[in-house]
């Protein structure tokens, strides 16, 4: 009855030391045991640390930018410094934070556990992609410190090609970061195909894994194009091979095609994992079977695939042909549908649920609110003639911040709270969590909704000096940025505090049903005492008290005699009696 043992989770002898169970955190000691580990959980934690550092740096750049924009006159920094700042903010947030954030940290940690596997398919490759990421980050850092990189994160030629050394270094850094992303995606696809536990059918995958799968597909198929693009750019600025150089008959617009063929799918690399986390948060914290599982699952794949067809909507005014522009506009409207389906299904999942206002749920609700605005303003930009007025203005800036920050970052932080007890074995302070979320939510709307107004009134992006008439709105936006900053610093504070002083986390604080809630908090190195056998879906909240994890009805201390989620014991008389008691 090994399954029962697994379910009840009696640790084996070799997993106990001095009375207390060994977990991935305390099993090995010393810095080397981290740097040389192949344990996906430890790698995930190191990724988490890295991306949060990048987020902090990028955030500080953002605060500086907003501070300068308090007025449209020369202040705080010079124009060249300002141009450098927004380039760094963009490049860091995109390449060092958002793209690796969820796949690298949360997915890396959770994916094998949710599958019921011991590790990802290629643990060494997993560690390698972390080191590749670090290498790229280091090169980017060098380029930033020693270089005048003011091209914006899009590296448009010919402006970027006229830049020398530092720009080449920066492009190579991003080139390397791209390979880290490719390796991670490849690893996850193979893991999801090959490492699923017995009984873990495709339709029993938690939707977070469907989203991760879709993301990985995009990472593997789109990122190489970025690689070759940046390689060509480096060759262009190094040896002027001429492919993008108008003087020699090359074509700058071709660079934009190359760049956006990756970078538009890349925005789905950024948002899809966030959507996946949303499905988990909503279902678990509403304790309700997710509405339209298959629709949500396949809309992820749909978004990933259609996402490859719409890159040209970044180029409506770039000088590309009117026919291409029209086609791209039409396809762009198609990609809106699957995102809409997801949103409707999430709302429908709230119907008839039992909604707890936990911090993760608050972030999920904020996501719904902000992502809806982000998505709808995307429709404005899909409309040909409206886009012509709005593109390259603050309207676009606001739009992608609503999607990327209101979407991905909200989901990321929400997911972080959701799985924090599992990752660290500690509970954080719920009240502070709620306050932090509220501050971020309010500050975010102050900062970026204002920018919709600025944009539609004609305020161009990437401006150091701006027309005086825009000053009041800019100032308001800046005040908002301070509120966001406050919210995030508070969050950082209580999360770090919880590491030492937080209450011990039970196995299943939220009453979740997917496999990760079956393991210890934090999990043991091998994730499960015995390979679990899956007999039910990830969101099978029965709708009766069986649906609620016993652990929750008792004191929050972990109690192995209770059979948490994913109860294989349903077929097992022994476990039945367990439940009755």
């Amino acid at each position, binding site marked *: 009855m090994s399954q029962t043992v697994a379910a009840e989770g009696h640790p084996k002898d070799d997993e106990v030391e001095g009375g207390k169970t060994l977990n991935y955190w305390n099993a090995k000691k010393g810095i080397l045991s981290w740097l040389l580990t192949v344990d996906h959980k430890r790698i995930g934690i190191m990724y988490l640390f890295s991306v949060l550092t990048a987020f902090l740096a990028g955030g500080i750049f953002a605060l500086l930018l907003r501070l300068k924009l308090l007025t449209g006159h020369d202040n705080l920094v010079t124009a060249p410094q300002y141009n450098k700042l927004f380039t760094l903010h963009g490049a860091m947030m995109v390449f060092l934070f958002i793209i690796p954030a969820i796949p690298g940290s949360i997915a890396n940690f959770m994916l094998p556990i949710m599958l019921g596997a011991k590790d990802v398919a290629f643990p060494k490759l997993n560690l390698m992609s972390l080191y590749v990421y670090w290498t790229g980050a280091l090169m980017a850092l060098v380029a930033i410190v020693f270089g005048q990189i003011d091209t914006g994160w899009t590296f448009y030629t010919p*402006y970027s090609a006229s830049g020398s050394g530092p720009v080449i270094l920066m492009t190579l850094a991003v080139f390397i970061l791209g390979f880290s992303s490719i390796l991670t995606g490849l690893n996850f696809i193979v893991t999801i195909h090959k490492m699923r536990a017995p009984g873990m059918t495709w339709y029993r995958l938690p939707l977070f894994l469907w989203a991760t799968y879709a993301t990985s597909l995009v990472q593997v198929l789109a990122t190489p194009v970025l690689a070759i693009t940046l390689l060509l750019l480096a060759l262009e600025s190094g040896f002027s091979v001429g492919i993008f150089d108008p003087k020699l008959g090359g074509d*700058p617009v071709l660079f934009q095609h190359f760049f956006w063929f990756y970078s538009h799918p890349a925005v789905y690399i950024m948002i899809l994992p966030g959507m996946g986390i949303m499905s988990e948060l909503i279902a678990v914290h509403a304790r309700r079977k997710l509405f339209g599982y298959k629709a949500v699952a396949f809309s992820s794949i749909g978004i990933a695939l259609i996402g490859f067809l719409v890159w040209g909507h970044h180029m409506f005014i770039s000088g590309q042909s009117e026919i291409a522009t029209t086609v791209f506009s039409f396809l762009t409207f198609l990609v809106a549908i699957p995102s809409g389906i997801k949103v409707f299904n999430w709302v429908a999942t709230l119907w008839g649920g039992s909604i707890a206002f936990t911090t993760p749920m608050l972030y999920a609700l904020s996501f719904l609110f902000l992502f809806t605005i982000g998505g709808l303003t995307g429709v404005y930009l899909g409309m040909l003639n409206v886009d012509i*007025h709005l593109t390259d203005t603050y309207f676009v800036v606001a739009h992608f911040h609503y999607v990327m920050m209101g979407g991905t970052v909200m989901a990321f932080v929400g997911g972080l709270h959701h799985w924090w007890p599992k990752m660290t074995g500690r509970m954080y302070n719920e009240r502070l969590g709620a306050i932090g979320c509220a501050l971020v939510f309010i500050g975010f709307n102050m900062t970026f909704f204002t920018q919709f107004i600025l944009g539609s009134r004609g305020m161009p992006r990437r401006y150091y000096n701006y027309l005086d*008439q825009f000053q009041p709105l800019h100032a308001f936006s800046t005040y908002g940025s301070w509120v966001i900053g406050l919210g995030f610093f508070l969050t950082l504070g209580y999360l770090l505090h919880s590491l030492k002083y937080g209450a011990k986390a039970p196995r299943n604080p939220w009453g979740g049903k997917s496999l990760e809630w079956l393991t210890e908090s934090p999990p043991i190195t091998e994730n499960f005492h015995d390979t679990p056998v899956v007999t039910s879906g990830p969101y099978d909240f029965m709708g009766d008290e069986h649906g609620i994890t016993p652990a929750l009805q008792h004191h929050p201390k972990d109690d192995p005699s209770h059979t948490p989620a994913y109860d294989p014991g349903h077929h097992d008389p022994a476990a039945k009696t367990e439940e009755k008691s």
Partner: protein
Amino acid sequence: MNEHGHIELSTFWLPRQSSTIAHQVDFAWNVVTLVSIFFFVLVVGAMLIFVWRYRRRTEHDITSTVEHNFRLEVAWTILPLAICIGLFVVGFRGYVNASVPPGDALEIKVVATQWAWDFIYPNGTKSRNEFRMPAGRPVKVIMSAADTPKSDTEVRPAVIHSFFIPEFRVKQDVVPGLYTTLWFTAPEPLDTILLCTEYCGDNHSKMSASVKVMENAAFNEWMENGGDDAKGMPPAEHGLKLYSKYGCNACHTIDGSPRQAPSFKGLFGRKEAFNDGSEIAAVDENYIRESILNPTAKVVKGYQGIMPMFKGVVTDKEVDDLIAFIKTLK
């Protein structure tokens, strides 16, 4: 801040409708805004109601196991799809109108450099950072980006700019090696501003031009006079005009505060040291003339030689007037 003008607003959201296509854009804007409000209220409203109605009461709450509803799911797939296609059509029709200029449009050539707009009118008249056009007559601009001369032998390679007149609702990238076009008709005489919306380097945010829509007759007269409207203007005053016309103000302040270049305040007669080690005891007419026509010859210590060459751009008279203007800045 910007001497080239500002943007008049018509509604809370959008600028004044100063071109004939503006109302089409605003119509599309209003349509999509209505759609957006509808869906936003639908989603967020439902969310809030459910969140309150189904808030957790006990740990034993019994939750729904309904996991799909075919009619509902088809509805919220087909309906948005239909609406989206409708929106596409609205946007597309406006776009077609904005793309195909009438045959009789007045052709004005636009050359964008770092960081100035040059306009070449049919009779060869040129103007810089000042876009003049006749009212009530379709105008077609043919644009391209050009190298910026630094000296007789050196250029700064051309980069991408973007031609944006918010009140006209028109925008188009200006790409090196490519000719791109736009057309628009401004029914009424008015003043507004043209902005660069594609990041083009240090002074991107200063790369604007005033837009002057004139009565047809006045425009033709102005064009015939070779764009010279400085007749009888005192030199120093004309110099002030040129100071902003040629975008000197992007780098040279007149209040003493240094930007990417030395301020003009007290420049005349000042002692300056140069990057090549040499120096001049007192700045005089000849030095200023040389610095305008061939800026990289002598670059003041501590600054980069980023100033474009104005040889062939400014006339001798204009140089004299600029010098007269600088002399007044004590």
